[in-house]
Each structure stands twice: as structure tokens, then as C-alpha cells.
């Protein structure tokens, strides 16, 4: 493996550091129009009418669109199709798109937008999980305010709970989290000949956008082309929402017959785009006298907001992972995705897991504390090893590095000599250590298995350079680099010769979304399939050029072919092989189509092989708390991750550092607030507080490799995992320092001092 496992430079690094990368707002087309969105000022209202006359009379205004102008179906195609492209009949959250103003300039569009009059009759909104599930709650979605629900029933949790030696019952709450990607949502829709439509934009899931545009304007998919532009971050926030933006821009472009740019300001991006679901988690855990978990009953609620978007699948992942990586024979988990009159929530790095991980990793710490067990030992006692049975009764048959992550993180963080019980802490500045352990099902799992396939198109050009089109996107996570490494080694080309291009729906068929830490594994495998088809052709021409008789007598590595029996003899460069390949008229292209390993799920019991493989991690956080002000500093976080194989160790470390800091923001400062009428109060970075470099702790990444035999070179997938367990590690460290248990995120000085 000449490049797999090496920290080769990123393909996109130079352009990005020099400012050459072009994001969607940097592009233009001749004759372009600009769109801006008129949004609901109310959280919940009956929509009686929209008066566009004054706006239409404004200079530069070409059109003002409302739901009646939607040429196709006024529904964003995700899971349930309950969200309209433009509000119809009801306004369901503050910030919901009601109309689009299309003008010759952005400023003219903005000026006219202020004159669109929305006639709406306010209704009483439902604004929290507790309000939505209250018995007498007004019904805003079907008869129970519930988008979806799941059960996991393993063994007999009620009976086992009765027999437990100790029972622990706690409630935890987690807040919204805003993705805060550097580039806001935006697209340009360009109408073409024969009623075709091309959309360029920042996105994670071009195939979702493909579906949305086709549906919004009612044309066949072979007339729709979606081109992903260099994407300035996603973190899940560009999974579902670009479908809304692209659908709207396409409606406007079709109507006006001109290109339309729709790019969001930061404030409207925060107000309207998806967020991490707030969570409410009720945990009841029974243990034996040693702290071994014998029964678990968990109720998990998430606040889906006004439309279901991805709530059903977010909820499914959280449900499966609700107990954490702990063995238990008797489990009952019930989960609910509820509707409220707030911004729809969707995907965010971790996808329904960070909420339950905060609860699970907090309660296990509480159990350890009450039973006077070292928090690390209780995890060793209960944690998954090869052979363990998960909450869905799946047997972990391989690639389980959890124990090694615990051991290595503990050694690096000096847990043994540093950890002391909270009762021993004194003084006005106190330090604490906290731990969390995490497991994470890679890929879409049984909940989304019908989407879990990817395509690759690989072409060897005449000059020996290799062009790869893939179905997963680069959004800053390093996909183009890591996949080029896999393709290079699988084919025998050098890394420099392989180019993996950004996703274009005209190049590969629907490959599902770029989510669920699936890209390295899925697209990597599909590249290996394509390479496996092309490589024999290269060996065949190499054999002739080297004067060998059989293809298998030839080796091709890192851009050079040579005879196996004479490795130091004649070498033929990949470029010459490519020329000969064309001269032989052998097909220089191949298609890779990879289907995820099987997974299963029983709808009634929740039992089955939920995901084909899991990644694992242990985080140890060290904090220093000022006992007078409650202010605390996260000094160091040690993170040991088992991702199977680090294809590019530097990128793995980058993912760990970025995810850890994002997790620290979630743990300690990030919070969206609404007023009593459901109006979002902090839709700007002056009031939505993110960590800065000054807040950044020392982050100590540790790579643990328990290879997965179906992964490309043993790799699993782990991009989301670094964020997921940071909040409980910090909360546990704060408890360890202060004796104060924080059960509602974020952990703030006010809460530590009890002065909220």
C-alpha cells in the first residue's frame, strides 16, 4: 500500500488556502436574477392570503412566487413529504418560506420582499417536547403530535428491573445545535434547452436535490442535472435543506426562464435551516451489586420541529444506540419524534446519537459514583467486546476496538494517577477528569438500507491520469483525498495521477446521501470494484510490454509495472500503459457499484443486525473549574478512536480535532433560544456562541485500528464519532471537579453555581 495509511496532502488544500476555491456565491451566469425569501413572522398561523401586488410593482422585480406558482408538487421529497417548498394553508414555524421575490438585483429583491403582505391568523403554537406530549396538547400533527416512534424489546426489562440490586432513574435534556458551516446555503438554478434544469450549489446530497428539483418543477430526472460546487462545510446541515433551496430556485428559474441565484444570509440560514434535534431522555438502569447492567428502560424524545424532514431516521439511529456500548440482556427502549412549531430539525454529525450518548454516558458515571467504582472500570465491566450482544441482539463478530480505546486513552491521559473522587477536591480552583465511551453504527443501517449503495465511474485517460466520478461529496471532510488514495492503490496508479471530482448527477447514478460516516467505506469499496475491473487490462498490456507470457507474472504498484521475477529490472510507467491500453482498444473505463453489507430490523421488536459494523471511541476530558464564577476551562481532551484503518492519519486527526471542538461547543455554550411566541432569539453569531481558538483545549488524538474485513483496506467510517461523546466527557469532568451534576446541556457557569 504505497499511499493508503500515509498522510498525503489534501487534493483541495492549495486552492483553499490560497483563496482560489470558488463557492456558489462566487459564480454567476449572464442574465442572472436574484431571489430572496419572504418568511413567516409567526410560529403557527392559518394562511389566508398573500398580497404580492406592491412588491411586484417595485423596480427590478420580475416575479413574486407563492405556493400557487409551484409547477410540480409542492412538497419536499424526503421521508413523509409533509414540508412544502412554499407555505400553503398554514404557517408552521417562525422563518418558514412563504414567498420568493425575484429581481434583477439582490437589493431590489430585498426591498420588494419587505412589501409582500402575508395575511395570517395566529394560532397557539406548540413550542417544546413537554408541551407536545402533554395529554391536552393542541394537535399540530395528526392526533398525537408524533412524526414517528420506535420500540426496542430485548428480553424482559420490566421483570429484570424488579430483580436488580440497584436502580437508577434520571432525566437528561439536550439543546439545539446549529451547524455553523462557513458557507451558508445557496444555489444557482439555470434553465437549459428542451425544458432542462441545472442546479449548482453547496450540498451534501446531490441526489436528494435531484429528486427535489424534479418534483418541484415536475420534469423527468433525465432533464435535471445537479452539480455540487465546492462546499464550505456541511456537518449534516446540507443533507436535507439544500433540497428546499434548490427546489425554490428551480421553480423561479423555470417561471422566469432565466438563471436564478438564491444564497442565504447567515441570519436566515440560522433561522430557517435544519438543526440538531433537542432531546429529552428518561433513563432507568438496573445493575447488580458490582455495577453490571442487568436492565434498561429508556424513553427518548426528540423535537422534530414543524416538519418531519429526517426526524424518522434520526430517531431510529438514536433509538438503536440509546443504551450506549453496554451489554444488557433485558432492554426496553421507546422513542418518539414529536412535532412542534419551530424550525424543522434534521441531520447533524451524530444524527440522533449525541443526545442519548449524553444521557447514557452521564448515567453510567452517576452509577459508578454511587457504587464507588472507577468510571473507567464500570465501562470495562459492561462495554462491548467481540462476542457481545447489542441492544438489537446483534453479535459483535469482529472489528471491536472499544477496550483498546479505553486503555490507550486512559494511559495517555494518565487517568490512574490523576483521577480522584469529587469528595477529595478542595479549593477555589478544582480540576476534574471525565470519560465517555461511544459506539456508532457505520452507514445507513437497516433503517435506510434501500439507499445504501454507491456508484463510481473510473476512467484511465490517454496520458495515464485517472478520472474518478463518485456519488459522495467532498464537503471539507477530505473525501476526494482519501478516496484518491484508495483508488490509487487499488489500481496501481500513483496518488498524484488520480483525481476524484466533485459530484455531478450527470456522471453517476443515485448513490444515496453523503452522511452516516459512509463515504470512505462505501465509495472506497465502489472504487475498488471499478479498479478491480480495470487493473487486469493494465496488467495485460504490461505483460506484453515487459515480454512476459502471463498477466499474473506482472505487478503494478504506485504507477509502475514490472515483472514479478525481476522486480528491480525494467519498469514501465503508468502513462505508457495507458497509451498501450488505448492502442489495444481496451475499454479504459469501469463502473463500480457497491451495495452495503446486509443489515436487518424487526419493526415490532426492534431486533436485528442494525448496522453492518460499528466504530468505537473513548474520550477523556480534563477541566479546571473556578468555583467562584463557575467558569471552567476544558484543558485537554484525549480521544482514542477505532475506525478500522486510518487511510490518511493526518485527516483522521483533523476529523478528531474538529469534531471534538464542535462537541465542546455543544457541551458548553451553544444554544438556540425562542421567545414565548416561538420566535428565534439568537440567529446570529453575536448571540449564538461558538468556541473560538482561545477556548480550544489541547486535543490528543489516538488512532486505534481494528480492521473490518469488508472495509476498503480495513476501514470502517468515523467522521461523526469525534463530536458525539464530548459533552458527557466534559459534564462528567465537571462533576468530578465540583460534585455538581449537569443534566441539561449546555454546561454553563450559571448552572454550576445553581444561579440560572
Amino acid at each position, binding site marked *: 500500500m504505497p499511499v493508503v495509511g500515509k498522510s498525503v496532502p489534501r487534493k483541495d488544500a492549495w486552492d483553499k488556502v490560497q483563496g482560489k476555491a470558488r463557492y456558489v456565491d462566487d459564480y454567476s451566469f449572464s442574465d442572472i436574477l436574484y431571489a430572496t425569501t419572504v418568511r413567516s413572522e409567526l410560529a403557527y398561523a392559518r394562511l389566508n392570503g398573500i398580497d404580492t401586488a406592491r412588491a411586484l410593482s*417595485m423596480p427590478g422585480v420580475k416575479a413574486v412566487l407563492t405556493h400557487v406558482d409551484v409547477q410540480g408538487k409542492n412538497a419536499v421529497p424526503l421521508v413523509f413529504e409533509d414540508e412544502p417548498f412554499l407555505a400553503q394553508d398554514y404557517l408552521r414555524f417562525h422563518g418558514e418560506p412563504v414567498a420568493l421575490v425575484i429581481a434583477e438585483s439582490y437589493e431590489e429583491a430585498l426591498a420588494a420582499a419587505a412589501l409582500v403582505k402575508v395575511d395570517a391568523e395566529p394560532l397557539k403554537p406548540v413550542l417544546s417536547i413537554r408541551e407536545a406530549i402533554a395529554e391536552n396538547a393542541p394537535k399540530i400533527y395528526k392526533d398525537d403530535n408524533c412524526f414517528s416512534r420506535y420500540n426496542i424489546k430485548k428480553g424482559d426489562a420490566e421483570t429484570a428491573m424488579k430483580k436488580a440490586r440497584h436502580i437508577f432513574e434520571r432525566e437528561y435534556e439536550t439543546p439545539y445545535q446549529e451547524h455553523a458551516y462557513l458557507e451558508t446555503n445557496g444555489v444557482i438554478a439555470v434553465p437549459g434547452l428542451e425544458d432542462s434544469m441545472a442546479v449548482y450549489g453547496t450540498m451534501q446530497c446531490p441526489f436528494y436535490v435531484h429528486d427535489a428539483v424534479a418534483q418541484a418543477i415536475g420534469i423527468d430526472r433525465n432533464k435535471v442535472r445537479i452539480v455540487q460546487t465546492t462546499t464550505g462545510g456541511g456537518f449534516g446541515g446540507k443533507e436535507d435543506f439544500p433540497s428546499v433551496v434548490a427546489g425554490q430556485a428551480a421553480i423561479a428559474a423555470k417561471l422566469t426562464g432565466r438563471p436564478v441565484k438564491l444564497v442565504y444570509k447567515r441570519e436566515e440560514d440560522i433561522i430557517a435551516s435544519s438543526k440538531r434535534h433537542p432531546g429529552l431522555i428518561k433513563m432507568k438502569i438496573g445493575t447488580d451489586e458490582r455495577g453490571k447492567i442487568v436492565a434498561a428502560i429508556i424513553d427518548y424524545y426528540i423535537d422534530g420541529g414543524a416538519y418531519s424532514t429526517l426526524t424518522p431516521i434520526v430517531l431510529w439511529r438514536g433509538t438503536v444506540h440509546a443504551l450506549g456500548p453496554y451489554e444488557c440482556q433485558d432492554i426496553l427502549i421507546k422513542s418518539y419524534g414529536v412535532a412542534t412549531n419551530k424550525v424543522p430539525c434534521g441531520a447533524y454529525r451524530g444524527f440522533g446519537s449525541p443526545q442519548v450518548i449524553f444521557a447514557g454516558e452521564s448515567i453510567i458515571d452517576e452509577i459508578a459514583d454511587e457504587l464507588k467504582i472507577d468510571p473507567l472500570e464500570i465501562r470495562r465491566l459492561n462495554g462491548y467486546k467481540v462476542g457481545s450482544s447489542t441492544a438489537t441482539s446483534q453479535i459483535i463478530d469482529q472489528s471491536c476496538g472499544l477496550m483498546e480505546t479505553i486503555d490507550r486513552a486512559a494511559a495517555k491521559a494518565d487517568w490512574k494517577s490523576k483521577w480522584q473522587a469529587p469528595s477529595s477536591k478542595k479549593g477555589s480552583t478544582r480540576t476534574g477528569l471525565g470519560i465517555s465511551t461511544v459506539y456508532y453504527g457505520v452507514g445507513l443501517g437497516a433503517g435506510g438500507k434501500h439507499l445504501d449503495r454507491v456508484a463510481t465511474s473510473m476512467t484511465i485517460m490517454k496520458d495515464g491520469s485517472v478520472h474518478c466520478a463518485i456519488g459522495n461529496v467532498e464537503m471539507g471532510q477530505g473525501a476526494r483525498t482519501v478516496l484518491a488514495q484508495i483508488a490509487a492503490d487499488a489500481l496501481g496508479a500513483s496518488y498524484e495521477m488520480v483525481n476524484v471530482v466533485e459530484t455531478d448527477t450527470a456522471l453517476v447514478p443515485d448513490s444515496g446521501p453523503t452522511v452516516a460516516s459512509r463515504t470512505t467505506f462505501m465509495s472506497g469499496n465502489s472504487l475498488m470494484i471499478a479498479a478491480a475491473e480495470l487493473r487486469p487490462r493494465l496488467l495485460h498490456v504490461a505483460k506484453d510490454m515487459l515480454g512476459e507470457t502471463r498477466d499474473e507474472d506482472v505487478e503494478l504498484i504506485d504507477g509502475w509495472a514490472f515483472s514479478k521475477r525481476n522486480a528491480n529490472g525494467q519498469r514501465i510507467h503508468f502513462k505508457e500503459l495507458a497509451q498501450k491500453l488505448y492502442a489495444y482498444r481496451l475499454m479504459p473505463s469501469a463502473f463500480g457499484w457497491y451495495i452495503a453489507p446486509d443489515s436487518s430490523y424487526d419493526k415490532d421488536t426492534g431486533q436485528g443486525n442494525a448496522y453492518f459494523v460499528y466504530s468505537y471511541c473513548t474520550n477523556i476530558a480534563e477541566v479546571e473549574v473556578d468555583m467562584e464564577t463557575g467558569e471552567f476551562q476544558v484543558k485537554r481532551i484525549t480521544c482514542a478512536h477505532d475506525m478500522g484503518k486510518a487511510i490518511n492519519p493526518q485527516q483522521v486527526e483533523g476529523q478528531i480535532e474538529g469534531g471534538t471542538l464542535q462537541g465542546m461547543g455543544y457541551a458548553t455554550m451553544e444554544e438556540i433560544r425562542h421567545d414565548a411566541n416561538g420566535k428565534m432569539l439568537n440567529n446570529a453569531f453575536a448571540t449564538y456562541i461558538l468556541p473560538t481558538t482561545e477556548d480550544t483545549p489541547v486535543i490528543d488524538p489516538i488512532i486505534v485500528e481494528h480492521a473490518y474485513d469488508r472495509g476498503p483496506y480495513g476501514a470502517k467510517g468515523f467522521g461523526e464519532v469525534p463530536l458525539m461523546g464530548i459533552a458527557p466527557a466534559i459534564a462528567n469532568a465537571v462533576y468530578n471537579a465540583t460534585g455538581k451534576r449537569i443534566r441539561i446541556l449546555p454546561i454553563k457557569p450559571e448552572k454550576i453555581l445553581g444561579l440560572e
Partner: protein
Amino acid sequence: MINQISFFKPDSVIQACEILARENNSLPVAGGTDLIVKIRNGMFPQTTAFVDLSSLPLRFIRETDGQIEIGSGCTMTEVIENPLVCKHFPTLTKAASTVGALQIRNLATIGGNSANSSPAGDTIPAMFALEASIKIRSKSGLRTVKIDQFFTGPGKNVLQRGEIIESFLLPKRETRGVFLKLGERKAHAISKINLALATWTESGKAKFRVAMGSVAPTVIRAPEVEKLLESSSQPFSDEVIAEAASLATKAARPISDVRSSQAYRKQMAGVLMKRAMNAF
């Protein structure tokens, strides 16, 4: 009608005042770090004109009859790096260096911080503690207002249409002092609460001034604390420090808002007071 906004770049301070007086709904812009964001978010929809103060001769720091005069156009960075300020008013140097982030400090002006009149503005408590006066210019002349007479509420002050802050006058004395702030993160944070303390010797006696921000509709002084400190002997005993902390807590009358709670702010007024005293 599309909002046409005029942009004026006057040649002199007087001309700036004239334009501001003449143009209905005109706004002066200095660093623009608060104003531009507010405009972008539609907070001043009637605005018809901006008057750019940035190239006016308001960027000076000089000594004038027993006072040090700081031009309102000085950026935070210019204030922080000025040796006169650093020597005489360390409280102000410290306060200015906690405003926003470096990029903001390079643009935001000392005049703008007061003109914006946020109860959380970090240089304001320092100005209170240093007994600053504000020179206000209009086309008809000049008036001087003591800093504690300048603010009338959150975002509100005594400036009339056509008036701008020309400079701050600080009595020239060698002071010592501290500025303490609690924010929502380590940098680039708006204060949940801040506290400035300055002290100097006058006729052989120690004088103390204490001011706090984000604990009332405007920055406030804590005269009871000042009295206590001036009547106590140094080094302060633990009892005096505790008493001062308790008086600071009593003086604070904060609200709960997106940044913090009333109870926390009240208690922190005491903690910051204690820390300010221990910093000597």
C-alpha cells in the same frame, strides 16, 4: 420605492455635524462594527444617509491642560497601544483590549463604544472609573458632559441630532486599576458583567472609583464601595474586601437575558469586586 441611501464623507467635524443636522434620518458611522450589522438586519429601516467620520481629524491622543484628551475616532487598538494611556490609565487599556476580537479592535472606535451606549460596552466602566468627560460637538458649538450624565438607557444617551462625540477628557493622573469581565467564551465575547476599578492619590489620600456594566440599564458606579475603600486602610483586610463585595452585589440590579441570569450577575458583581481588590 427602493431605499436610496446617501453616503457623505465630510471634510471637517463641523461639516459632519451640519450634514447630520440637515439630513433627516442620517447616521454617523465610525468603525461601523455594531452599526453595519444592525443596518444589515433592518434595525434602522428609515436611514437615508450615512455620514462617514473615519477620515476626520478625530484620531488623536494628547495632553491638554492637566487632561488627556482621547479623540473619539481612535480605534481600540490605537488606545491600547498608546503609551500615554498605558502609563496613566491601565484600566482603560485593559478594558479596550477585551473588546471583541482583534479584527474588531482594529476598526471599532472608542467614541463608537460610548455612542452605541450598550450597557455591556467594555470601555464605558473604565471611563466612569477614570472620571471622564465627553466633549460633544455640533455646528453651533461645543458642550461637555460628565460620563455619568451621558447615558440615559440601553442604547440611549444625551446626544441630539447633529451632535457627535469629539473626544473624551480624562483628568491626567497616574492611576492604577483593573478591568474584569465575564463573557460567554474566552475571546470575542460580549460581557455578561464587567467591572472597572481605578485608584489614584489625591492630596495624600487614596481615591477609588468603581463602575460595573451589564448590571443595570446603563453602566453604573458603586459609590458605597468607593466610600468604603476610601475610608479603609490599605492593604485591605479580608473584612473590608468582603464588605466591598457585598456592597457591589447590592449595587447591581441586573436582568436576565440571552447571555446570563439576574442571580448570576448579582453574585458575580461581588466576586469581581473582590478579585479587583485582590489584584492590587
